[in-house]
């Protein structure tokens, strides 16, 4: 078990993924993105192709849709904060790299991983991280005060909705990554 890191990690499943030879057209459709057909994580999820397909399409629109709203860097920041809080070392490593790259603030992202979700950040990142962490708690603690802080930091409704979706989505992703396998030090 490694600590939180921005290094590239591998991920080893605890259940047997499908093999590439077992993939039918329906499985390929479920994977959506061809590159995902080499990932043990997605090959394991391909055991239930219906939900994998819907999940992948949801994921891609939440993080990649360029039509306004929250900048990609801060969608990734919400994903990273959620993963840090839930304890998903693998998800945090991937999305910390994205957040650092798109924001050009890898040092601030690194501090989130090293010191945790309460580490010092500027007001806007503080608001995004606090909202993501409150939403990640069970039961959720997200309240009007978090929405007000996001608004005060300059987020409009679509951006707030994006922050909610990015954080919520990692409530989904973290639970799969943490429970179906484990991170490994070597990149696969």
């Amino acid at each position: 078990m490694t600590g939180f890191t921005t290094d590239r990690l591998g991920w080893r499943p605890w259940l047997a993924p499908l093999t590439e030879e077992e993939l039918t057209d329906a499985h390929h459709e479920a994977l959506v993105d061809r590159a995902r057909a080499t990932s043990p994580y997605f090959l394991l999820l391909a055991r239930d192709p219906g939900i994998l397909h819907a999940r992948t399409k949801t994921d891609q629109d939440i993080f990649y849709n360029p039509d306004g709203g929250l900048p990609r860097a801060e969608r990734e920041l919400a994903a990273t904060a959620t993963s840090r809080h839930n304890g998903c070392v693998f998800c945090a490593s991937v999305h910390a790299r994205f957040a650092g790259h798109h924001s050009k603030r890898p040092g601030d992202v690194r501090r989130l991983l090293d010191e945790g979700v309460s580490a010092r950040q500027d007001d806007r990142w503080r608001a995004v991280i606090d909202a993501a962490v409150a939403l990640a708690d069970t039961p959720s603690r997200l309240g009007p005060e978090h929405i007000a802080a996001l608004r005060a930091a300059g987020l409009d409704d679509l951006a707030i909705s994006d922050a909610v979706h990015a954080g919520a989505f990692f409530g989904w992703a973290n639970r799969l990554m943490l429970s179906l396998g484990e991170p490994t030090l070597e990149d696969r």
Partner: protein
Amino acid sequence: MITDVIDHLAGIAPGSSLDRLRDRRPDAREHAQRSYDVLFTPDDEGEVTLVERDAVAAFVTGLHQDLTVARFYADRLAELSPGLLKAVEYEVEAGRATGPYGVYAGVLAAESEEGPRYRASDPAALGVRLAAAFEHAHLLVFRPREAGRDALAALRRAGWSETGIVTLSQLVAFLSFQVRVITGLRLLNQEGVTA
């Protein structure tokens, strides 16, 4: 007939500003709903029965303590298996906690946070498979960082196949997403969209 569960449970009316806001992310909107459809009204039950799906959903959303969402899934279960609902409500009471918590191994050990480890209170009322599913669901909801191979082995011993475990895991994880999107959108909806 509910066509969009998130809209229904967040109180988003057709044509409202939040309805238009959701349309800005059309794939996310459509596929959040399709996720619900394929998990709860699949063409083929596969390795997880419809009753098991609804029972796990009633348990998981009960643990999240969002009364509107929990009621929705409890009603679904009551329709399919009225006898089971009481047992599920009993387990929700027994399983209440505040998360995420959990013990870390290795270099993160200093961040460990101990918390309850739920075991089904009345496994006889649930049956072997469902009791194991509830214990796994509780692990995923509250202390996912403690998940390990032994948890999957416990499911296998209770009769869960590898594919069944994937479906069960997706179901619990998806509900973790859905209930949070509803929470966030409901907050936006209540205060009135300004932009």
